[in-house]
């Protein structure tokens, strides 16, 4: 029997976070239609398990469900390993050793940032979207992804490093044709 004394007003508590839910789903599955499916599925799960919501930030709670629904979806529909290979090809090698410049990041335009984010592995893209775009705390991300807080920080460090390097490479490549 669910604990009804704590029953939450689902409509008022979770419906306002649909944009955040869609944003996270859209970044994780990278397709509008699939993201809509994920959000629907996540809201249905949230609705069923709303009795398990024990206070805290409802946005973090629904985003954790979206995150897990999206990863289940990715595993089922796309297999989970392919993006990693792709990512290593693009960002591997000696570029890890080169220094990072804030300038390159400032010069990158929106399309470049979006493309660079898209190319990250799911796990790296996930932490950046949850932290930098959705503004979740390390603790909230750790709870959602079921990893220790320290892992969140180190994953974020590697994810941001890769993203910044990718932007730097894109800026550099853009300069070559201009100089010729």
């Amino acid at each position, binding site marked *: 029997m669910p604990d009804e004394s704590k029953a939450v*007003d689902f409509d008022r508590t979770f419906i306002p976070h649909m*944009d955040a839910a869609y*944003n996270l789903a859209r970044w994780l599955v990278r397709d509008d239609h699939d993201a809509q499916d994920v959000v*629907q599925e996540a809201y249905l799960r949230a*609705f069923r398990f709303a009795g398990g919501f024990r206070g805290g930030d409802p946005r973090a709670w629904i985003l954790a469900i979206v995150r897990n629904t999206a990863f289940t979806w990715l595993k089922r529909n796309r297999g989970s390993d392919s993006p990693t290979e792709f990512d290593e090809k693009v960002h591997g090698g000696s570029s890890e050793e080169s*220094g990072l410049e804030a300038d390159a*990041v400032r010069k990158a335009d929106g399309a470049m940032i979006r493309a660079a984010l898209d190319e990250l592995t799911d796990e790296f893209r996930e932490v950046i979207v949850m932290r930098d775009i959705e503004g979740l705390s390390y603790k909230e991300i750790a709870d959602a992804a079921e990893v220790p807080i320290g892992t969140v920080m180190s994953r*974020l460090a590697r994810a941001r490093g890769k993203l910044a390097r990718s932007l730097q490479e894109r800026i550099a490549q853009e300069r070559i044709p201009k100089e010729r």
Partner: protein
Amino acid sequence: MTCDDARVLMHGHLDGELDLAGDLEVQQHIEQCPRCASEYAAMRAMRTRLKDVAFRFEAPAALKEKIRRAIPASPPSRAGAYPSRRGTWVPRAVRFAVPMAIGAMLALIVAPRTIGPALNQRLASEVVASHVRSLMAAHLMDVASTDQHTVKPWFNGKLDFSPPVNDFKKDGFPLVGGRLDYIDGRPVAALVYQHGKHVINVFMWPTAGDTTSAERIETEHGYHVEQLTVAGMNCWMVSDLNQQELDRFAELIRAKG
């Protein structure tokens, strides 16, 4: 602090996630190490860029609408649209007691076949979840027809029983279709009725006996669920209709059974 440590910890520093001592240590390292300082500046610039709303996707209006429709509203400001919802919100102890009392009575009257409150609660949750899923996933109907003579044969060969299908259009509850669903670990018939803008899902599957029982189960989130055993069919009705209207509908189902 080594540069390797600093390159991870600078993120905790940037996000305000370190304790004071750790924060100061990283700060000091960044001030003394030009390479880490440069990397930190890059990370800070990137974080600022990503805060731009241009990187946020907004949920399509159609999606919001679909989810809103599927999940019944319950704030007091909209209570007028669902008059019974708050009114029938009985204290927890009473809600416990009523189904249990009915359960106890049934146990005495229809001796061998009793459904415990726990099982009923579980079935009620399943039924509500199926109802919500049917509204959300745009899979309300497999066979869309207002004709009972189309809907009933459609189930032939898909189920090992033939559910009673009746149209209650003249009573204000037109049949709009049917679909296969899955409840309590078995395939069941789901009949879809409409009343105004409200959708009623009726789930049916054969029961062991042919006694007639009735139970009203109020579930979470403002959906109303009623259960009937009629003509050997276990029959569960769920809707966001108010209680009186659903009672009226249940009475129609019972009368036809």
